[in-house]
């Protein structure tokens, strides 16, 4: 088998078997050993049991995606199997973590399965021996449950699995000991440490038929932290002075909502779990109206309910930050599977002409910086800002230098006036504050606001069209002035983003490349890895990951598209929504853009993108059905 540069380890089992926490600890241990790590999480929409796995990829080089396939499978079996009969719909769930994962295991890979949980006939039934021979796999049956039972409880099979893995891969068990020692106490700690030790010893004793070990960590220049996209969005919000969150649970948005709810009270903030998503967004508007920096969010279906308050925030020019954590749709879709199918929904939902900012961060770092920017723009320009990400980025962990987050907080509520400033500001002859000034004094499109309780700042906020003091008005002239002013903010924001040279678009590959790949959000770093592979294989390709979806980076994208002969838009949806958006915003390029689409519930792997690009280039066709290629118009 080829010597793998990176360790690509998959732990599989049933939901509720501790797969998630075990993988997190595993990733953290590898990070502490001096490697870069990246995790990918796959789980069913069930509480207990079913097919769940987490992949941990680790290496000394940059590790930005789950990689292609994986090299090491640890199956714990599904202890919550509830359909043991062979003809049951779910099949043999105990065997499932083993059977369901084999298709993606790379040639020459290693399999460790729990023979304490699986009967011999289960293993025979899937022809494991035969398949192993065909693929050069190395199979290690081991009684993980037996080891766990000896010192504690069955559920400690995961610790046994980690100990056995560590021995097979020659990883120093001290990293795992340290994590167990710090994370547990009392009998639990002692039992787990013994399980780890026994399993490690056993792993050393068995004959190693595979000939490779985990890469030895070269170390990090500075302290690293292991964070998910949801952690980073939450921390970005906190650092931007967000102290109010309202929400309703819905996967995968629940992640941010939980992190914020657990932390905000400690920071002197308020968290509200409310009756529905309409209320959630409405509360965020009410808090923001009162002068507090506020956030809400949801996933597709819940975000649909927010369509109405979202428009209210636009019309009343109340700052608002919403998070949209996408999952596969339509309707309830696949609750725990990623998709980028809500783009058009996020851009245009709500009646009338949309004036909102939409960012789609690509990774943990961007989740932090773009959430901060979303708050800054929302409060400065009095406009809703949406941070769109998906179930993939929500749950995946990667290491980032701690210093990345060493940023000053910014609690500035933006264009809110102090009472002294209100006294000086424009008022109607009747003393009513001109909250919605037709021509703001600084020549911008932002008319500064007051908040309830401030002396002299009285105004009416209304979702109806309104005049300068906020009273309902259907005067045609006023209508046009107010519409132009509100919509003009998008141009101002575009200019600000350009002027600060903090482009949110990320480029990769040789500047003079012949072909381009365009992608957005969580698929960016996977695409970049594929671009490296393609260039190494002799193609001439560059890529751009688009984060600014509204306002759209017209100049940047025009430059990119003019510089290439053809571009493939890579996205996780069935209708090519970004491709459509580019054509709408730029008004052309229908003949220059093709689409590579994946919407089976799994994100792209680098090799998917390589195959897709080669197809677009006329060098073959997609070898399997899990993706769709849509050629450019006229092709």
């Amino acid at each position, binding site marked *: 088998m080829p010597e793998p540069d990176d360790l690509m380890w998959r732990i599989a089992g049933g939901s509720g078997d501790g797969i998630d926490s075990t993988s997190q600890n595993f990733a953290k241990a590898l990070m502490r050993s001096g490697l870069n790590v990246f995790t990918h999480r796959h789980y069913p929409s069930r509480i207990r049991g079913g097919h769940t796995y987490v992949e941990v990829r680790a290496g000394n080089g940059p590790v930005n995606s789950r990689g292609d396939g994986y090299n090491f499978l640890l199956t714990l079996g599904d202890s919550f199997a509830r359909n043991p009969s062979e003809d049951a719909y779910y099949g043999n769930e105990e065997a499932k973590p083993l059977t369901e994962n084999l298709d993606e295991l790379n040639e020459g890979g290693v399999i460790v399965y729990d023979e304490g949980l699986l009967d011999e006939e289960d293993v025979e039934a899937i022809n494991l021996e035969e398949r192993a021979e065909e693929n050069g796999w190395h199979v290690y049956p081991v009684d993980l449950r037996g080891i766990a039972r000896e010192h504690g409880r069955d559920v400690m099979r995961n610790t046994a699995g980690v100990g056995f893995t560590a021995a097979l891969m020659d990883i120093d068990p001290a990293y795992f000991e340290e994590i167990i020692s710090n994370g547990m106490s009392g009998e639990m700690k002692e039992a787990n440490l013994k399980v780890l030790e026994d399993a490690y010893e056993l792993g050393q004793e068995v004959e190693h038929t595979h000939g490779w070990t985990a890469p030895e960590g070269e170390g990090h220049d500075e302290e*690293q932290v292991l964070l998910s996209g949801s952690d980073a969005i939450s921390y970005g919000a906190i650092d931007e002075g967000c102290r*109010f969150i309202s929400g309703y649970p819905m996967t995968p948005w629940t992640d941010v909502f939980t992190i914020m709810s657990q932390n905000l009270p400690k920071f002197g903030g308020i968290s509200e779990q409310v009756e529905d998503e309409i209320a959630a967004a409405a509360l965020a508007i009410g808090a923001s109206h*009162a002068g507090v920096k506020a956030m809400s969010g949801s996933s597709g279906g819940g975000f649909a309910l927010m369509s109405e308050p979202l428009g209210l925030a636009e019309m009343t020019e109340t700052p608002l930050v919403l998070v949209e954590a996408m999952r596969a749709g339509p309707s309830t879709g696949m609750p725990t599977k990623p998709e980028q199918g809500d783009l058009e929904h996020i851009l245009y939902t709500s009646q009338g002409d949309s004036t909102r900012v939409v960012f789609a961060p690509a990774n943990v770092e961007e989740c932090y910086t773009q959430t901060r920017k979303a708050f800054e723009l929302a409060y400065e320009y009095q406009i809703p800002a949406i941070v769109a990400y998906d179930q993939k980025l929500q749950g995946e962990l990667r290491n980032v230098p701690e210093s990345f987050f060493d940023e000053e907080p910014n609690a500035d509520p933006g264009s809110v006036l102090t009472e002294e400033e209100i006294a000086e500001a424009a008022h109607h002859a009747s003393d009513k504050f001109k909250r919605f000034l037709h021509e703001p004094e600084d020549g911008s499109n932002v008319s500064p606001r007051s908040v309830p*309780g401030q*002396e002299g*700042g009285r105004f009416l906020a209304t979702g109806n069209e309104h005049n300068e003091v906020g009273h309902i008005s259907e005067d045609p002239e006023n209508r046009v002035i107010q519409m132009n002013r509100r919509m003009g903010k998008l141009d101002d924001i575009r200019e600000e983003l350009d002027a600060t040279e903090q482009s949110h678009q990320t480029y990769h590959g040789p500047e003079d490349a012949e072909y381009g790949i365009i992608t957005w959000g969580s698929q960016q770093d996977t695409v970049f890895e594929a671009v490296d592979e393609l260039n190494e294989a002799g193609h001439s390709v560059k890529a751009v990951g688009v984060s600014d979806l509204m306002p759209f980076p017209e100049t940047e994208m025009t430059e990119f598209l003019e510089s290439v002969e053809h571009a493939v838009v890579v996205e996780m949806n069935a209708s090519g929504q970004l491709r459509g958006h580019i054509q709408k915003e730029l008004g052309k390029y229908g003949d220059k853009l093709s689409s590579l689409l994946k919407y089976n519930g799994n994100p792209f792997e680098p090799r998917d993108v390589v195959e897709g690009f080669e197809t677009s280039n006329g060098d073959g066709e997609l070898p399997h059905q899990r993706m769709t290629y849509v050629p450019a118009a006229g092709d």
Partner: protein
Amino acid sequence: MSAFSAIGADSETDDEAFTPGIEPQPTWCPGCGDFGVLNALKKAMPEVGRNPDEVAVFTGIGCSGKLNSYFESYGFHTIHGRSLPVARATKLANPGVEVIAAGGDGDGYGIGGNHFIHTARENHDMTYIVFNNEIFGLTKGQTSPTSPKGHKSKTQPSGSAKDPLRPLSLSLSAGASYIARTAAVNPNQAAEILAEAIQHDGFAHVDFLTQCPTWNKDAKQYVPYTDIQESDEYGHDINDRAEAAQAMYDAESKLHEGEILTGRFYVDDERPSYTAEKQAIGEMPEQPLAERYFDEDAEWDRSYDLLEKHK
């Protein structure tokens, strides 16, 4: 000068202070009961002792939604049925602001019914005035949740097969700590009840009977009325939940039989407001959150310390 100097300012106000200097022409029909709400509210304010800058009035959609166009204070005319969630967050963000929400029977008991239940349940310190004219007015006369059974309209041509909703009983079940019913035809009682409701520390629900002379000709049904506090027959203990429930049941049964009972039905002064409950469990700051953004000495912790557990 503090950031919110209007709050708690020792200013004597009269009802004129709550009349906008640029009063838009009311779009309410002549004889509309909504004028009764507006006037009662203006009349209540000097009693409450608040000035226009420290009051925020939140409305939904419908004829009632125009209330804050004709009432001088901070105003937020939200969307259909959503005045309560917007209003209660403003109260959480700045408990010093006097928060009043208003809606119609369609807005408040129909499309906004869910928010009504949950806002009452949480017992936010605010006042909710429902303009109850038993009809959709602004959309021109459709059957509403409080329209009587058999009510005929363009959308219920054979007459409604539904029993009307019982707002007082619903409010009690949901958890409101002050529940009263008054009527536009009784301006003195209305102003008195509104002043009391606003000063109540908890969720005060006032079902305000308003006649609709255009779409609900039965509007005259609201005359005459009986004040249950002044009638020997109905003198129940307003602090007793069971007696209040019975009184509400009677009042709601008799409404469509032609006997109109108004007055205070239930008052619970013991139950802490939501703000107090949240402060007690440490999930609500002592200082109004909104003030911190104007406080130059405020310290803003950053997320950096949270990174420890990610190492």
